[in-house]
Each structure stands twice: as C-alpha cells, then as structure tokens.
C-alpha cells in the first residue's frame, strides 16, 4: 500500500478548473518534485492534500485512509505536514514556541494538568523542549530559540517553517517552494538538509519548486503541471528531455 495515493483529483473555482484529474502515488522515503509555471495548480494540490480545499472529484488516501472529507488538523494527525509558499510562521511567538506548536499533537494534557502543573504536564513539556531544540539544532536555529519568529532573517524563516513542520513528526512532508528567495549557497545547503531529514526521519517528501537545480538535484521523480493538467512525469532526465515540458516553460519552439 502506498503512503500517499491521489486518484483523478479535480477542483474547480467557479468556471476555472484549477487542477484536473491529478493522479499521484508515493511510497515511504520517496522524494518527488512538482513543477510547472505559475498558476499551474501546484499549491492548490497541496491545499487539497492538507484539507484546506475540498476537491470536486477524485479520491485521496494516506496509508489507505481516505482524507477527502477530513479537516486539515485531522490530516495532519495522519502524518502529513507542510510548509507554506508565503511563509506563515506564528510571527509574534518565539522560534522555540513555533516549533513546539508544530508538535502540538504529541504533547497533550488537559487544561487542568496545565494549571496544576502535574507530572504529566512537566513530562510532556520537557519532551516538547528537547524535541524542539533538537529540531532547531538541525537547522542551526537553536541559538535563536528565544527570538520572535518575525525578527528572523528571511532564510531562517524558511528553515524554521521546515523545522516546525518536522515537529509534527510527519511521514509525508509537503514543501511549498522551500528555496524561494534563497541564494545559491543557501539553496545547496537546503538540498543537503532535505536529504538529511529524509534519511534521518524516514520521510516521504513532496516538493514544489521553481529552482530547477534543486528539483533536478534531489527529486527521484518529477511531475510537471500546466493549466491544472499533468503534462509529464518521470525521472529528472526524462522530464528534462521532454519536449512538452520545454514547450510549457519556454513557449513553442521556433521553426527552424
């Protein structure tokens, strides 16, 4: 049974079909890329996978369980975590608290426990602390743990989003343009990190990215979308050589 299975998913906004008959199957430990020009429907697919939008047609399964009718937090509980294209950190909270909220589902206790500071509370909070600091360390953010997320430099905010998503302890991680706005050095560092976390936490990662260097460099399989339709899929080499893809990106080839 695949970890993630998406079958013929279609979503329409008014008259516009944003995504049509999208099909994807992912196994554990896979690294898959999702590329395509702006407005091709990539983020919309993420939004359907995480329950923000409900598809008009089609089915989606995580571990064999249908998620079409699930609310976002229920899907997260099944082990799907995401980052956002337009960074959505909890800006007025500290870096550490951002990551702790990512682990929300795993550090639960009653309000009464919280008020009375029971052993259960202390135990859960200690684990939350250890986990959060550990994740921050991976992204070299541990020294900034007590700063407000808003005050982080842009690149650190992107990294913090990934750390926060990892705190969910996902099986499937959805990265929405993680390299947007990063320079070349930061991008190659990010590529290493993506590999590192995939191996360390045994994740399947689905990544949307415009940076071809990153996508071609780390993804094992790539899906190309244009106007909501999957126009090509395969290994980086296949996709690179596919004339349909080149056309979508560069326009029709000039006749020679």
């Amino acid at each position, binding site marked *: 049974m695949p970890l993630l299975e998406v079958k013929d998913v279609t979503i329409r906004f008014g008259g516009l079909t944003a995504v049509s008959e999208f099909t994807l199957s992912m196994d554990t430990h896979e690294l898959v890329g999702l590329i395509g020009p702006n407005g091709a429907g990539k983020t919309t697919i993420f939004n359907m996978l*995480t329950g923000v939008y409900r598809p008009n047609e089609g089915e989606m399964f995580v571990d064999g369980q249908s998620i079409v009718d699930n609310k976002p937090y229920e899907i997260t509980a099944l082990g799907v*975590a995401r980052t956002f294209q337009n960074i*959505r950190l*909890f800006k007025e909270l500290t870096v550490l608290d951002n990551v702790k*909220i990512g682990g929300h589902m795993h550090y639960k206790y009653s309000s009464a426990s919280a008020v009375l500071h029971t052993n259960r509370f202390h135990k859960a*909070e200690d684990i939350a602390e*250890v986990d959060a600091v550990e994740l921050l360390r991976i992204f070299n953010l541990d020294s900034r743990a007590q700063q407000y997320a808003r005050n982080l430099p842009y690149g650190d905010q992107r990294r913090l989003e990934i750390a*926060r998503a990892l*705190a969910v302890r996902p099986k499937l991680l959805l990265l929405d343009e993680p390299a947007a706005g990063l320079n070349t050095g930061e991008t190659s560092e990010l590529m290493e990190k993506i590999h590192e*976390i995939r191996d360390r936490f045994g994740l399947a990662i689905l990544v949307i990215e415009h940076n071809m260097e990153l996508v071609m460099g780390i993804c094992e399989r790539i899906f190309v979308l244009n106007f909501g339709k999957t126009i090509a899929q395969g290994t980086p080499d296949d996709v690179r050589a596919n004339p349909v893809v080149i056309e979508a990106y560069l326009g029709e080839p000039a006749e020679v």
Partner: protein
Amino acid sequence: MAGGQRVAGSGWENRDAPPPATRHPPSARLPWWLRDLIYAAVFIAILIGASYGLDRIPIGGIAYYRRIIVLMGINIILAVSLNIINGHAGQFSLGHAGFMAIGAYFAAFLTVFYFAPYVNKFPEGTEQWLLQNGLLLVAVLLGGALAALAGYIVGLPSLRLRGDYLAIVTLGFGEIIRVFILNINKIGAARGLSGIPNWADFFWVYLFCGITILISWRLVRSSVGRAFLAIREDQIAAEAMGVDTTKYKVKAFIIGSFLAGVAGGLFAHYMMYLNPEMFRFLKSFEVVVMVVLGGLGSISGSVVAAIILTFLPEGLREVKDFLHTNKDPRMVIYSILLIVLMLTRPQGLLGRRELWQVLARRKDTIPTDERDQGDATDRP
C-alpha cells in the same frame, strides 16, 4: 495515533537527554503538589492578613476605598478572563457583560432562594460561618458553570465568524441575555434582584483574582495556551500543525466565560443587589477597553489597566469638586483620556509583554539584542 510514535533510532536520538537549560526542570526537592500547596497557603495567609488589616485600619473613609478595592478585584477577574478570549485566542468578543450577568444572576438566585434560607436556620456560630462560605463557593462556581455553558454556545458560531461579525454577534448575545433577564419575574425583572446576602468580601474576590491570574498564566505557558496563540497568529497554519482550532476556540470561550461568571457571582454577593442595567454592553466595552489598553495578550497589562480604569473615575471625582459644577465631567474626561491613550500607545500600555519585562528593559538588564526585539514588538 499515526505518525505519533517514535521508533528507537528513527532520528530522535537525543530523546533521553536531559532537558536543555531554556526550560527550568521541576524542582527535584519538592513534588509539584507540595510546592503549589505551599504557595497557595502563603497566598491565602497574605489575603487573610490584608483583609484583616483593611477592616481595621483607622483611617477616615477607609470603607470607601475598601469598596473600590473590591470592585477593582472583580474588574481584574473580568479583564484577565477576557484577555484569554481576546488577547490569547484572538477571538474578538464583546459579550463579557452577558457572561458576567449569567453568573451573577444564577449565583444570586441560588443564594436568595435556596442557600440563604437554609443558612439562616442555623444559629450564628462557626457552623453557620462555614456553611455560608461553603455555599457561597458552590453558588459562585455554579454561576460560573452556567456562564461557561453560555460561553460554549456563543463559542460555536465563532468557529465560522471572523472579526467584526463575531464582535457584533457576541455583543448581541450580551444584549439578548439582558433582555431575557428583564423578562424573568422570579429574579426581579426590571426592578432588579435585591436581598442578596453580603457573603463575598475582599478575601473571596482576591482569592478568585489569584486563581484567575494563575489559570491564565499557566495556560498560556502550556500546550493549550500555545494552541490559543497559534490560532491568534495564523489560523490556517495552526490547523496545518494539527491544532483543532474549533476545539480550542470554544475552550477559550468556556474558560473565559466561566471566570466572568465567577466574577459576576462575587459581584452579586458583594453589591447585594443586581439590575439588568448593570450588564449593558457598556460594561462589555469597559472590560474590552481594559484588555486593549493593557495590551492584548499581556496578563499583567490587563491587571494594570483594570486597576487604573477602576480608580480613574474615582480620581476624577476630585476634578468635579474642583470645577464646582453640578454636572459630571468625569466620563467626558474619561473618554478623552481613552482616545489620547489609544492614539499614543495603540498597542496598549504594555504591548504583548508583561510588566516586569517592560520594567527590566528600562533598567537595561536585558542584553542588547533582546532589547532590540522588544522595540520591534512595540511596532504595530
């Protein structure tokens, strides 16, 4: 629960390491309950001392100030509890007077019709004293519980409504409560409910003040409070992190309205008289103003603002005397001060920080880089 279990060697290898220094580990010497009990005992001893002292200080007009101090305590409970809903969970509620009214009327109803007649059957003495205070506690808590139920019902629409829509619905809810009370003859309708025994005093009000602050303080430093804050900051991101926003919004409403109901019950047993007019939406405004003025999300800010805004009208009495006028300019000055304060500090007196953080900054005890953050926080 899928995805939740950690497998040995699956990447969390520092799993058993001691917690890092950022969080203070629980004291190894004292178990949590013993330490809290000691704090509670000290707090209660201080309250008894203060209460005893306030009753006996031989200063002219002390009764007047005692009354203001008690009402201040009730305002603190209201402001701190509303801060949980408005400041922490970010759900803009204008219905706090409604929750307070429910708690006040229900507690008073229980006392007037059931508890007081029962207590009066006993001869004066320790037994009656114990019974009276025990039943006060029961009445106040039940008042809070009914208010919490109302908070649950009001919290439900808040799941779908945002901003202005929620504000007007909560305001409307408060008015609906008032109109219903106006039409229930048993509890006095427009005449008001009188004959409530004077059971609540300085001690009870400030005991619940302490409890309210403790609840709010510890909640916001727990996973529950973090969920509230996450919802305030970014609801979509919070959901994506596995926070059941529905559940936590309703939770914030339940906790906040419970405490408002408690404040109402204490108010009833202190004032000895209730009237629906006391719980107009002006009262809700008053509490919202306290919370915003103190700084949304700042617990000590709510406390400070509640203190200032309780004393302000009293202090302005002097102005009235000075002007030798029959007309009352206090509220005019109050409203001007309110506008000026909001214009000069739109983020509230303390912003999102607590009082000591603000004071510490002034004394330059915080390292430079953190001070910069502090300044950044001030920016709206």
